[in-house]
């Protein structure tokens, strides 16, 4: 590989890893704080991508679609938490698996009823449709750089939210000890709702951002879900920064795996997970 292709693959790895971080951060927070295993988290990504497709075709612009999509998915998340997930906190994991598995079936069929089973494309916004030439034959699309930049900004925002705000303090406290937080007079249910809705919106945003490069297709959520599980396992449940490190590791492993070992690309990610499990069964960074 020459320098230009290594640079391209590195940028791709970063972009993919950062996008996965958006999905996995919400998943790990919901695990860590609420103790809920949510199989439907991949569907949230799928919902985001389809929203981007539908709203872009209606409004004609991906920007508008995303601007409308974020509050919409946040609201859907809060509603879902109120209607379904709030009943699961004291149930065992098996029931959580069941309910969220049922939700996946419902979301996929609704998607099939409302939008159909065809593969759809979403246009890259004209502003970012250019490519930066790297050598005579290779170039890098600007839109992928934009995705990475947006993800970095969001990761910083999440860091600020969790480490520097009052709400973040409450979230960290809830992650640590639920009943103590409640005893201090903090409305833990409100925090749960906000965290869940935030996780939903982040996963959906990842789907919206990815829609132009990955296109929009049935069952697109399940692959992302399982990769996000791997990230949460590697990073340590409840650890947002563990998820960031793990997402980047997976981004690089997957991208370079596809280039260097094309026949085994699907497996590389899981082999990395197996290695981490041998080394640290509780993930790189334990909860906290």
């Amino acid at each position, binding site marked *: 590989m020459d320098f230009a292709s290594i640079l391209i693959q590195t940028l791709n790895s970063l972009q993919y890893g950062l996008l996965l971080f958006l999905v996995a951060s919400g998943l790990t927070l919901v695990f860590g704080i609420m103790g809920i295993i949510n199989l439907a988290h991949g569907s949230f990504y799928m919902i985001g991508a389809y929203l981007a497709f539908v709203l872009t075709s209606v409004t004609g612009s991906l920007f508008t679609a995303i601007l409308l999509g974020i509050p919409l998915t946040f609201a859907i998340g809060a509603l879902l938490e109120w209607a379904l997930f709030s009943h699961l906190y004291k149930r065992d*994991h098996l029931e959580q698996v069941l309910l969220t598995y049922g939700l996946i079936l*419902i979301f996929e069929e609704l998607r099939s009823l409302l939008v159909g089973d065809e593969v759809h494309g979403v246009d890259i916004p004209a502003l970012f449709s250019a490519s930066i030439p790297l050598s005579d034959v290779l170039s890098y699309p600007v839109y992928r750089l934009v995705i990475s930049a947006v993800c970095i900004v969001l990761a910083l925002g999440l860091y600020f939210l969790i480490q520097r705000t009052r709400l973040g303090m409450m979230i960290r406290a809830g992650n640590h000890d639920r009943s103590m937080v409640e005893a201090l007079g903090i409305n833990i249910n409100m925090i749960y709702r906000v965290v869940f809705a935030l996780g939903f919106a982040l996963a959906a945003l990842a789907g919206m951002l990815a829609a132009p490069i990955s296109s929009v297709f049935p069952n697109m959520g399940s692959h992302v879900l399982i990769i996000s599980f791997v990230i949460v396992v590697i990073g340590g449940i409840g650890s947002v920064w563990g998820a960031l490190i793990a997402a980047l590791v997976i981004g690089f492993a997957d991208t370079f795996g596809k280039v260097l070992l094309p026949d085994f690309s699907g497996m590389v990610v899981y082999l990395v997970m197996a290695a981490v499990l041998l080394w640290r069964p509780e993930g790189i960074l334990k909860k906290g």
Partner: protein
Amino acid sequence: MNSTASTTLKLLGLLLLACVPLSGESFYVELAAKTLVLAIFAMSLDLLVGFTGLVSFGHAAYFGVAAYAVALLSPKYEAASLWYVLPASVGLSALAALLVGFFVLRTKGIYFIMVTLAFAQLAFFVFHDTPLGGGSDGIYLNVKPTAEIAGWLPFDLDNPSHLYYFILAALVGVYAFLARILQSPFGRVLVGIKSNEHRMQSMGYLTFRYKLAAFALAGGLGGVAGFLYAVVFGFVTPELLSWHQSGNVLLMVILGGMGSLPGAIAGAFVFTGMQELFASWTKHWQLVMGGVIVAAVLFLPGGLAAVPDRIKRSLQGGGSNE
């Protein structure tokens, strides 16, 4: 219910199942055969979920490994010997489970659920991405294995009735085997691990080894089901290892009430029945199925919470569990 009544009920159920081929309707015979295969699969998972307390969300991997093993071990245009491919494919499944179990059993709770799923996905990609098993198109098993021993043919798997009774015999065999295992000291340790692993450890049991043995055993028995599935349908695709398959079998175990072998069989029948019923209403049958699952979790917590009691009673009552 006392144990005589329970035995009578089981024998009646068996008699009923034995009568299916007499109907002569090949559609129903095949559907019943498929359901029996799923029942074996559900029982194998119940050993982990219901008796050992290990919620595996990747059990389809061992089903699929055995199904692929039959297809790959059989010569292309000749029949393989049943007495060679059956133990070989079941053995491969158990071996795969042993290997995966070594990793996944280092984790607990939510981690365990996610990691079993991730390893099943790894197995899925092995068959989906590599040319080993025909990639995403899958592979055909052109000729069913033959039961011939030195020129004598005790039964013929190409005959639908013979195949059906062979599967029914396998179901009874797996049931008896699991029932025996659960009565043994080994099975008692598994149930002890489910109720309190720390206590078992402080009593001196190396629980990891017991769990690993149970995981490999469940994988092998899941392999029996995968083997039969490949023989019934004659083709194998990566979808057999997909996580939907793992989710469905988990659903069967829960529907039947975890920790009950007859329950797992009933769960497989209820699940297939619902699937056929909903599919006859609409092609979006999964929407109805999903709705039923969500509603069951939300509105029937007692139904699921009653399960531990039932396990306790079935253990005390020596097999009675209704």
